[in-house]
């Protein structure tokens, strides 16, 4: 079939992308927002117990994740990384499965709170709740990449609140010493739950600290998707060339409360909240693509309809999946079973096969005495 290719728009050409790339990026930003909004609706409807949101971060996350190579490079995400995970291979269904914590949730099989996304298939590392711990894992992944000469790049992202943890200092120092293929992304939304940056940082930017490690520190407007892409692309190229790590700080906004258990009007001024939407990457990117002639009304409507159908289907699927079976709750402490580990006196719950675990140890001294 003959395909006529039109020349890329000036916007796409300015960063070496095609218009289709830009549309795919836009679709991912919009999908992340739609998934996130669905999470809040489900929470307020009593369907899921907890939401931690990425709204306001999506543009930066998609722009920054885009230059990395899926299934080769690695990302150690954080709890606002919904758009990052979508850009790196996870689906809307994968994200919603984590909200419902179902048995087939690909992040943790329902073991972790929502927001703790990770998936081996996509080189997205499982994360924990103690913030900034993932910093060192990404540095270690980059170290292994260098030693194994695999050509991989490792990126981790976190908030500016997390950036104050000691692991960030230890990791940046080590990554810089060994010129590791590593990128630290700080998504600075101005708040660590309720604490503003004025009480977190003595410098204006987190990126100012990069100089102390002898590495480049870049500040980028997180509502400018293309600028985020450009900054990340340069950092990826530097990493792959063996020139070491980069710290990218994206100034983003937090459109929601910290979580579904937080009331942000207590600590954020009304006028600040009212002004937030003017810094939102989603409408800005949409307008930019329209102006560049990349996005027309029909395409926009088609993408919106596709996203709605995808999120609806993902919700329905997640609702219908089974909860994890308690008989699996002692699995995967280790790669293999350890029969000497003691199950609780109340057993392993529904579906537990008696032959599988019960015979391992006498349940009481009296039973043992009969042997």
């Amino acid at each position, binding site marked *: 079939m003959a395909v006529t290719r039109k020349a890329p728009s000036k916007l796409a050409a300015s960063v070496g992308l095609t218009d289709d790339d830009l549309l795919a990026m836009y679709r991912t930003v919009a999908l992340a927002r739609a998934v996130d909004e669905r999470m809040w609706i489900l929470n307020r409807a009593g369907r899921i117990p907890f939401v931690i949101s990425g709204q306001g971060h999506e543009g930066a996350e998609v722009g920054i994740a885009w230059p990395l190579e899926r299934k080769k490079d690695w990302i150690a995400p954080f709890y606002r990384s919904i758009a990052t995970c979508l850009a790196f291979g996870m689906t809307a269904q994968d994200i919603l499965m984590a909200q419902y914590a179902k048995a087939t949730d690909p992040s943790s099989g329902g073991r972790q709170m929502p927001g703790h996304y990770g998936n081996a298939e996509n080189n997205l590392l499982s994360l924990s709740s103690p913030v900034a*711990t993932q910093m060192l*894992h*990404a540095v270690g992944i980059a170290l*292994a990449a260098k030693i194994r000469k695999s050509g991989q790049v490792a990126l981790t992202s976190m908030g500016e609140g997390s950036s104050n943890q000691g*692991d960030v200092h230890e990791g940046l120092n080590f990554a810089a*010493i060994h010129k590791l293929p590593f990128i630290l992304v700080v998504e600075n939304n101005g708040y660590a739950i309720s604490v503003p940056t004025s009480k977190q940082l003595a410098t204006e930017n987190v990126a100012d600290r990069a100089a102390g490690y002898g590495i480049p520190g870049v500040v980028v407007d997180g509502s400018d998707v293309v600028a985020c892409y450009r900054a990340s692309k340069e950092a990826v190229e530097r990493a792959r060339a063996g020139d070491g790590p980069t710290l990218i700080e994206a100034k983003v906004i937090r459109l929601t409360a910290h979580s579904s258990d937080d009331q942000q009007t207590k600590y954020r001024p009304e006028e600040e909240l009212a002004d937030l939407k003017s810094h939102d990457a989603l409408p800005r990117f949409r307008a930019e693509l329209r102006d560049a002639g990349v996005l027309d009304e029909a395409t926009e409507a088609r993408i919106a309809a596709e996203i709605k159908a995808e999120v609806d289907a993902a919700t329905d699927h997640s609702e219908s999946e089974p909860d994890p079976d308690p008989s699996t709750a002692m699995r995967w402490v280790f790669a293999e079973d350890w029969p*000497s580990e003691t199950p609780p006196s109340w057993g392993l719950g529904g579906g537990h096969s008696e032959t599988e675990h019960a015979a391992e140890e006498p349940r009481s001294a*009296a039973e043992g005495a009969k042997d």
Partner: protein
Amino acid sequence: MALKTFIEAIRETLAEEMRRDDSVIVMGEDVGVKGGVFLATDGLWTEFGDDRVIDTPLTESMIVGTSIGAAINGLRPIAEIQFADFIFPAFNQILSEAARMRYRSNNGFGVPMTIRAPYGGGVHGALYHSQSVEAFFTHIPGLKVVIPSTPYDAKGLLRSSIRDDDPVLFFEHKKMYRSVRGDVPDGEYTVPLGKAAVTHPGTQITVIAYGLMAHHALEAADVVAEEGISVEVVDLRTLRPIDKETVLGSVRKTGKCLIVYEDNRFGGYGAEVAAIVAEEAFDYLDGPVSRICGPDVPGVPYNHVLEDWFMVNPEKIADGIRVLAAY
């Protein structure tokens, strides 16, 4: 078969495993050109170079956290913590990350990493170069904790630890590095994790110990044997997962159980062993499940009189055996 010191067995195992498997690397403070403060890694840097024997900054959390990441991306790191006393900056990485990675990802990710650390007192190391830290780590599901007592076991267990697909803490009593010698066969062998050894058969009292205390328990067993008390010594070798079968089998036979550990008494590892024995061998007991262990002060004091007061030795164990034997 050759007679080797404890540290020679460790060093040989590291070198042999690095030769066998390119994915094995060593990271830690002074592990490179110096070969470690105890020389456990002596010669590795010369043989394997900068890429695989990495001198790190003084950053224990980074040593462990980076090893976790490297393990996830295809390596088998051996992280050395210079003294077990300095492991606590890495506690969060060990507890929240290494131990929980496989469980929290529903088997998506594993951490094949070994953390080696010298522990223990009796070496004029005072509060911060003498600690026994095993109880902090045996508490955590997801970690394997190994404390060998002989060069043979050190080699076989370290090899098993390095090849294991989950995180292993491998504690080496620093007083044993050069004072303990033993036969180590030529060639490759492993000692399985999770298996204790009966190192002295007996009939009247079971003494459960590990590390340096396993040696002291043997000496104590010989002392009380002259008094007509028959002691069975169980060397745990792996603290977690614990070999309940060997422990309970021995106690069910002897009817008495004395647990020996060098760490502070309260909440020490031996307290869990006591609980297991009390719960699962109660009907067989002819005396209280007892402990001989370090006193509850915040550390081993430096002065030699004070240090001797702190440390468990064969005489203190023999006294504990005599008290239990009288029941």
